[in-house]
């Protein structure tokens, strides 16, 4: 049998619902399997841990072929909000937690949540802007040190 994966570090670089959920599901699943898991939020992915924005992360209605929605329609005002509401309803039906609850769940499960130093500086964020589950803002070097001996996944 192949050596089991003991640790994963997942980079979340996108600030859309479909960009954030897979990372959270993978991190939560890793912990449920007894693996160590870290989440590193960078660039627009920081919205998922931004206390003011975490409840407003939306599905991309434009430039998202998976939505099966003509881009011309996607640009209409409110289209992203409608798509997001539809998605959230589906998720609720399937017992998938909302984003703030999911962030709490992975943190409670022992997954380490970190913000990216370069992105935080770029957008002018400090630890005070993030949800309390975030352990700290770390540099890319610290991220690699944290990820030592494990697998790194970029989403």
């Amino acid at each position: 049998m192949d050596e089991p994966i003991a640790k994963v570090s997942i980079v979340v670089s996108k600030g859309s619902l479909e960009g954030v959920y897979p990372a959270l599901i993978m991190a939560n699943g890793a912990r449920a399997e007894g693996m160590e898991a870290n989440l590193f939020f960078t660039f627009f992915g920081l919205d998922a841990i931004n206390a003011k924005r975490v409840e407003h992360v939306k599905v991309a209605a434009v430039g998202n072929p998976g939505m099966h929605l003509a881009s011309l329609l996607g640009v209409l005002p409110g289209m992203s909000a409608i798509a997001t509401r539809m998605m959230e309803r589906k998720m609720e039906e399937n017992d998938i937690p909302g984003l703030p609850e999911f962030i709490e769940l992975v943190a409670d499960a022992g997954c380490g949540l970190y913000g990216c130093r370069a992105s935080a500086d770029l957008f002018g964020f400090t630890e005070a802007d993030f949800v309390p589950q975030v352990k700290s803002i770390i540099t890319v070097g610290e991220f690699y040190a944290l990820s030592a001996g494990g697998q790194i996944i970029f989403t």
Partner: protein
Amino acid sequence: MTTQTLAGVTVERDAEGFLMDPSLWGEAMAEAIAAEEGIELTKRHWEVVRFMRRAYETSGAGPNVRLLARTSGISVKELYALFPKGPAKTAAKIAGIPKPHGCI
């Protein structure tokens, strides 16, 4: 799949160590499986193990971590403190029931 004797009973276990036949399970066996996992079962562990067992007997499957926390009233944090290698998975193994399914 391997065949072995656990707490005096001959059982078959899958590659991850889950019992193939949950009906062969007993509390002495739970202690033996927990010991393999490096866990000494406290009263609180037993609450979780018995809860998993009951959930399996009533619904045919053990719950995943989120559902386990919600239905048992034991927090996700405490569940992971009790079973660091995955509460639903480890407690299911100790309870002699199949591994819980589902991604979340």
